[in-house]
């Protein structure tokens, strides 16, 4: 069964995917998130694009146009320095919070 991505974590997922895979276009990002999560997490595909625009505005990612393997024009996104910092911040916050939640849930 597929799960909607929790609110607010989409940014973090995109940043994380970009940080490990380098330069990707929108469709590849969506596919990567699904593939890595073994199809559990499914991006509501279109909502990727407002998120990407927001990150462009914040300066966390940069974009440039390039060609796909099939020789089609596509916009490729890359993580910027600010983006890496943001990812680190968000991951440490997420880890702390989920660890805390985990401890509560694991109470005997």
């Amino acid at each position, binding site marked *: 069964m597929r799960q909607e991505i929790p609110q607010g974590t989409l940014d973090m997922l995109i940043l994380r995917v970009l940080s490990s895979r380098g330069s990707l276009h*929108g469709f590849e990002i*969506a596919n990567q998130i699904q593939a890595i999560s073994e199809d559990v997490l499914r991006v509501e595909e*279109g909502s990727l*694009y*407002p998120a*990407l625009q927001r990150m462009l*505005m914040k*300066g966390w990612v940069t974009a440039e146009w390039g060609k796909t393997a099939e020789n*089609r*024009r596509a916009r490729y996104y890359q993580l910027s320095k600010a983006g890496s910092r943001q990812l680190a911040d968000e991951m440490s916050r997420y880890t702390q919070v989920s660890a805390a939640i985990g401890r509560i849930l694991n109470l005997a």
Partner: protein
Amino acid sequence: MNLIRRISFLMSQDRQRRELAEEMRLHRELRARQLRGHGLEHGEASQTATRLFGNETLLKEKANDMWGWNWLEDLGRDWRQTGRMLAANRGFAAIAILTLALGIGANTGIFTVTNALLLQSLPVAEPQQLYRVNTTRMPDGAGNTGNSRTSFSDYVFDHLRGHSAVLSSLVAYVPLGSNKISVRAGTLPEEVSADMVSGNFFSGLGVKAACGRILSAEDEAAHTPFAEVSYQYAGLRFGEPCAAIGKPMNIKGVPFTIVGVAASNFKGVERNPTDVWIPFQVRPELNAWGSAGKDYYSSSPNWWCMLMMARLKSGVSKAAAEAALNPPFQRAAYEPLGGKPRQGERPVRLSLVPARGIDGSASLKQPLLIVQVMVGLLLVIACGNVLVLLSVRNASRAREFCVRLALGGSTGRLIRQLLAESVVLVFAATALGLVFAVSATRALSRWAELDIAATPDGTVLWFTLLISVAAALAFGVGPAFSASRVAIADSIKNSAATAHRDRGRVTAGNILTAVQLALCLVLLTGTGLLVRTLQNLQHVNVGFPTGGLLVFGISPQIQDQGKAEAFYRDLIVKLRAVPQVRSVTLMGNRIASGWSNNTDAYVDGQTPKNVDDTMLRWNDVGPDFFTTLGIPLLAGRDFNEADTSASGPVAIVNRTFVKHFLHGQNALGHTASFTGRKAFSIVGVVEDSKYSGVEEDPQSMAWFPYTQVGYSRTLHVELRTAGPAMAALPAVRKAVAEFAPDLALLQPRTQQAEFDRSISTEILLARLSTAFAVLAVILVTIGLYGTISYSVKRRTTEVGIRLALGAERGSVVWMILRSGILLSLLGLAIGMPLVFVSSRFLASLLYGVTPLDPLSIAGAALGILAVAVLATGIPARRAAAIDPLTALRYE
């Protein structure tokens, strides 16, 4: 950093949108291909891809919104829609903008003049530190020339100027003549206003020289023959202002050299611009006020003739300065008079008045205020009109609003849209209004003969902005709220036939119209009062026929009294020889100029006892004075050539003099005088006539031969001509030029024009208020017409039904007419109390008419009823012409 990226996004918005769309299309296509790889059919694959992607349009909007520019886009959309709306309703927009522009323009124009006359600071450094110095009056026993409130003696000036504890500087100035004086820079003599000033005049005021230098303390100390001229005068006289430096200039026959041109925006500190300033002089030709007395301003410590302005030290308050200056002021005032005030005299006190506006404009304060109130009313009426127009139009747009609201448009958006429309209207009107204002100001300055450069400054622009914003808010918010309250369901399924639904708005509209009518009534009544005042003033009998009388001043630079007498005798002979001239005489004070000699009367050697008012007004005049003017002689004789300095002193008095001082006895043989030292035998009695102006009441008056009272340096020549007075002027000019080539004719005018000048305020007020009243009537008529037309349109079905059921067309006309008349009666009911209050405000400006003049009020009320019938008549006839069948199909 974010901002830079956001702005660059904004700059390339179109490209960004295209790229986003391309990116999304690619995504869907790749997904569809992937699905086809999983075995889906072609069509199904793209459908699924589209479904998985989500609402593309919405996502695009969301993506764009991420950049935070959506408010700007909404705004742009509002403007574009407003532009489309106004373009589609061009007639409406034009009327609304024009109406408002008239209102705003008139208000700005009048305020520009008010501002220049009463509020504006002088164009000097730190004007807020600058004060005019006033006194309660002059001390008993002192003499005065000029306004007694603003005149000081040289002695007082000398004793106060060093008071450096509170004063940064004290400057003094005094005109060289009570009017313009004669100077010559080049070949032709001309009239200029010239002042004699203390050496620190320019430095103390904080005025710099545009070229050359400013006058200095050394100039005053050595009474140097150096002159400073105004930028305007220098430009006019020498073409290029700075070309004036070093040029010679004859001032009343005394040679001067121009050493400086004052800063271009400095036009002096008096009501009319000053052209020339010279340092204080001590020579008879250049005495204060052009006085011919043997005393100079500087040698007579009791002659109060100089004006003063003070610049306070920074941090010193007005009250502190007054407290510090009053003791030395009182010492200096009374020292030359024996050291202390007379028995029972209240010591004089000095006060400081902020140097704002133009000196001597205080008398214009009330008229200006009245005009300002009038244009204010006009603006309210204009706003009311536009409001009526707007709400009528919005009512017909009710369906549009409802559809928008029903489709999920937000009320906020709707209000913003309406606000945008009113903002556009108001600002277009403001721009146009400012154009009107400039011409209104020019016209007003010309009418008022204000020689001022009244240009809109910061204060004026703020004022205009304020009224514009107020108007925009009134137009936007008012209709917007009523529009947003429309009942959706009702409005969509229904329309005009159901009159009940917008009864609330129509009633508000009716009240608005009634208020407009009420304000119009106030304006009409005021106009009636002012016009009747003017008529009364214009029909005042001044005591002699003014037609054919020409007057001009002349200032020969002659020191010797005998020679001066000879000069005038010869001038009279020369002028009598001009074919158009019937008779010639002279006078010291020009009739109706506002100037007069007022002193205590001496009758038979002493001040009359047992009369409450001992004041005598007098004038020094030439031969044939009463014959020339046509003032009837009641007893005795007119003056003639035989009344010279060598002959026995004689006087002629008027009827009031005889009644007041001699209790109606035969006056011939008694003596009259303005001094206890010299008695003049009364040789004639004449009928009363006006002296200083039209509004004057009969006064006790005496006339003396100009040869017997010490001679004035300027005399006015009065000519009785055959035919129109101005037609004789060229020949007269020529005759004077042949006789005395160096002398200018000072202010040549007809005597009638001189009298008109004495009531120029009343003329101006009557003309302006008439113009405003006409505008108000037009606006109110349009407004009422709009309201009634709208209600007729709304009642088309009702009228149709009435007609179908057999109602007479006449009764339909009456039905509509009656609503208009009821509205105007409501207007009268609201307006009458306002009239009662406001006409009292006018009382002091009226002449020969009471504030509650029944004729003016009844006329105004009738005017309002006429407006109502006129504005209602057309729609009423239209209603009567309705075809019942068409009307019933109308829905």
